[in-house]
C-alpha cells in the first residue's frame, strides 16, 4: 500500500537549506527590482478553473495541465502560468482601476513538462505585466526590467533576442496565405526549417521579392543592422509599422544603456494568436533553454471581457539558478554566527545573552550540554558555525574561536558590546 511513501512525484523537488536560501535571496533581489519600477506584487490562487487557461487566445495544451475536480464536478487546474490570471484580474476585479496597471508576481506554476536541464513540473516564475498601454516605451521598459534582473542576479554574459510577430503577419497577409498555412509556415520559420518553408510557400503565387523575403525569414536574426535592410524591401504597411516599432524599442533600450545585450530575430514566432507585437527571449551560456521570455499580448484580456493592450515577461527562477550555477557564481549560504552552549543550571543566563545578541541582528543557536563543551564544539564544526560561547557557572563565559582554534575568557558586557 505504501509503495510510493518515500518518493516525490515526477518533476517536483525538495529544496533544502543552501539552495533554498540562495533562491530566497535571488527572489528578494528580483522583488526589489520590480518595486523599483513601480510594479506592485500580487498573489493569485494556485488553483483556477480549467476554462481560464483554455481561451481561444491562450490555449494551454490540455495534457500539460494538472487537473482535478471541485465538489460540484467542475474542472480545476494548478495554474500553468500567472500571466493569464493577471489578465483575468484586470478584466474582473480591477475592471474599474485606471490604466495603465502594473503588476508583478513571484509564485509557483505547474506543468507536465519533460523534466531536466532546469525544467521541472513545479517551478517558480517571477514576472511583470503592464496592462493598458500600447506604446513602444512600455515594450522597452519590460525588456529593461528583464535585463536589470539578470544583471542584479549576477549574470554577466547573456543576450536578449527581440522579434516582432506583426512583421511576419504582414508578409503572410501580403502573400495571401490561408490561416491554416500561416500557422504552419510560422512553425517552420520558427524551426528555421527552410526546406519545409519553401515547399509550402511554393504553392502560392507572389512577387519574387516577397517570396525571397519570406524564405529569408529563418535567417533574419543577429545584429540590429538587419532592420535597416528590411526597411528597404518591405512594402505592406503592417510589416513596416512592425519595423518602426522594433526600431523605436531598440532605440529606447539604447537610452537605458542596454544596447550591448540586444539582438533581433524576425524568425522568432511562438503563438500567433497570443503574440501581437514585440516578443523576446533571454539566453545565456550553459543552459539549453531560454531563461526568460515575454512580449506583447493585446488580445488576451478581451477573452475575459475587457479590451486592453498588454505586455510583460516571466522568468523561471529555477532556470536562472541553473544558469548562475553554470556561470560558477558563488551561492549565498545561510549562516549562524555563534552557538551558545550551557548546562541546565545556567539556562536563564544563556537565554538572556542569546536573545540580546539576536536583537543585535546576529544569528544565534543554543545548545544544552549533557556532557563536556567538546559536545557543543563538534556540533558547531559539523554545521560550520565559527564561534562557540560557553556559559559556565558563576557568570564565567568563554569564547571558542573554532576557525583559529583559540579560546578566551570574556564578560557579559564585553559580549554585548556594552
Amino acid at each position, binding site marked *: 500500500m505504501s509503495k510510493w511513501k518515500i518518493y516525490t512525484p515526477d518533476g517536483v523537488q525538495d529544496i533544502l537549506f543552501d539552495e533554498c536560501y540562495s533562491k530566497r535571496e535571488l527572489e528578494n533581489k528580483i522583488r526589489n527590482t520590480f518595486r523599483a519600477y513601480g510594479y506592485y506584487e500580487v498573489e493569485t490562487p494556485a488553483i483556477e478553473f480549467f476554462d481560464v487557461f483554455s481561451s481561444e487566445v491562450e490555449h494551454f495544451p490540455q495534457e500539460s495541465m494538472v487537473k482535478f475536480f471541485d465538489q460540484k464536478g467542475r474542472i480545476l487546474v494548478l495554474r500553468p502560468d500567472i500571466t493569464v490570471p493577471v489578465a483575468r484580474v484586470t478584466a474582473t476585479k480591477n475592471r474599474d482601476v485606471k490604466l495603465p496597471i502594473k503588476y508583478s508576481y513571484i509564485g509557483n506554476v505547474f506543468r507536465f513538462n519533460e523534466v*531536466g*536541464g532546469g525544467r521541472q513540473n513545479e517551478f517558480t516564475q517571477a514576472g511583470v505585466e503592464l496592462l493598458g498601454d500600447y506604446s513602444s516605451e512600455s515594450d522597452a521598459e519590460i525588456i529593461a526590467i528583464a535585463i536589470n534582473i539578470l544583471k542584479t542576479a549576477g549574470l554577466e554574459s547573456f*543576450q536578449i*533576442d527581440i522579434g516582432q510577430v506583426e512583421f511576419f503577419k504582414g508578409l503572410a497577409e501580403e502573400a495571401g496565405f490561408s490561416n491554416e498555412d500561416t500557422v504552419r509556415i510560422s512553425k517552420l520559420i520558427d*524551426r*528555421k*526549417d*527552410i*526546406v519545409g518553408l519553401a515547399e509550402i510557400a511554393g504553392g502560392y503565387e507572389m512577387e519574387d521579392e516577397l517570396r525571397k523575403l519570406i524564405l529569408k525569414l529563418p535567417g533574419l*536574426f*543577429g545584429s540590429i543592422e538587419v532592420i535597416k535592410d528590411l526597411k528597404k524591401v518591405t512594402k505592406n504597411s503592417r510589416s513596416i509599422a512592425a519595423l518602426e516599432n522594433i526600431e523605436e524599442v531598440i532605440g529606447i533600450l539604447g537610452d537605458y544603456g542596454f544596447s550591448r545585450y540586444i*539582438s533581433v*530575430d524576425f524568425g522568432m514566432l511562438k503563438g500567433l494568436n497570443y503574440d501581437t507585437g514585440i516578443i523576446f527571449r533571454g*539566453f*545565456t*551560456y*550553459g*543552459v*539549453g*533553454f*531560454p531563461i526568460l521570455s515575454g512580449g506583447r499580448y493585446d488580445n488576451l484580456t478581451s477573452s475575459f471581457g475587457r479590451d486592453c493592450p498588454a505586455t510583460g515577461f516571466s522568468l523561471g527562477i529555477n532556470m536562472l539558478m541553473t544558469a548562475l550555477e553554470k556561470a560558477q557564481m558563488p551561492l549565498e549560504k545561510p549562516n549562524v554566527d555563534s552557538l551558545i552552549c550551557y548546562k541546565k543550571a545556567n539556562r536563564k543566563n544563556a537565554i538572556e545573552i542569546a536573545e540580546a545578541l539576536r536583537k543585535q541582528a546576529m544569528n544565534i543557536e543554543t545548545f544544552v550540554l549533557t556532557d563536556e563543551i567538546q559536545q557543543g564544539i563538534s556540533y558547531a564544526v559539523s554545521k560550520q558555525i565559527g564561534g562557540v560561547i560557553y556559559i559556565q557557572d558563576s557568570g564565567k563565559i568563554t569564547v571558542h574561536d573554532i576557525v583559529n582554534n583559540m579560546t578566551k575568557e570574556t564578560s557579559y558586557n564585553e559580549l554585548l558590546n556594552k
Partner: protein
Amino acid sequence: MRYLTIALSKGRLTDMAMELFEGIGIDCSELKSSTRKLILSDEKNKIKFFLAKPADVPTYVEYGAADIGIVGKDTILEEGRNLYEVLDLGFAACRMALAGPAELEGKIDELNIKRVGTKYPNIARNYFEKTRRESVEIIKLNGSVELAPLVGLAEVIVDLVESGRTLKENGLVVLDTIADISARMIVNRVSMKMENERIQKIINGIADQLKSMKR
C-alpha cells in the same frame, strides 16, 4: 573560446557526416581511429564530437548538451523536439510511408484502419490524427515491421521505405507517403544565438560543400 559540441548519429550517417566536417577543415581523425573514448575532440578548432544513438541526438541538442547534431528527419519527426533544423544534408534519402497489403491499394479512404504496426509511434499517431483525422491503435514494434500485416498483428504499417524491395517481396505496397526523409543538421536554440558566428560558419561551409557536390 568555448568548445562547440557536435552529436553524430551512430550508424550509417556517421561516415557521411564526418566527410562533410572534414571538408570544412574540422579534424575528425580521432573519431575515425577505433578508440574507446566517448568524447573526441579537434583541439585546434575547439570542437568536441560524440556518437550517440540516433534517437538520442535530438534530445542532446534540445537540452544543449550538444550544440549541433546530425540526424535523420525520421528521428526528428518521431522525437518532436524543440530545436532548429537548419540544413538538409540530402544523403540517406528515403521516405516515411504508410504501407499495407496490395489489395488495399487505392482503397485506404474507404478502409477502417484499426491497428498500425510501427517503429515510429509518434509519427504514425500524428499522421492518423492530423492528416487522416482518425483514431487508431498504434502497436509499437522494434524491427521487421513488414511482418505485422502478414501475421495479422496489424492491418497496415508506418515505416521507412528506401527502394521498396522488402515491401514488394512480402506482398506489401506503399499506400501513402507521409514525409520525405534525409539527414539533417539540427542546432540548439540557445547555441544558435550565443555562438551564432561559429555555428553559421559551419552551416555555410557545409551548405557550400553540398552545392558543389551536386554539380
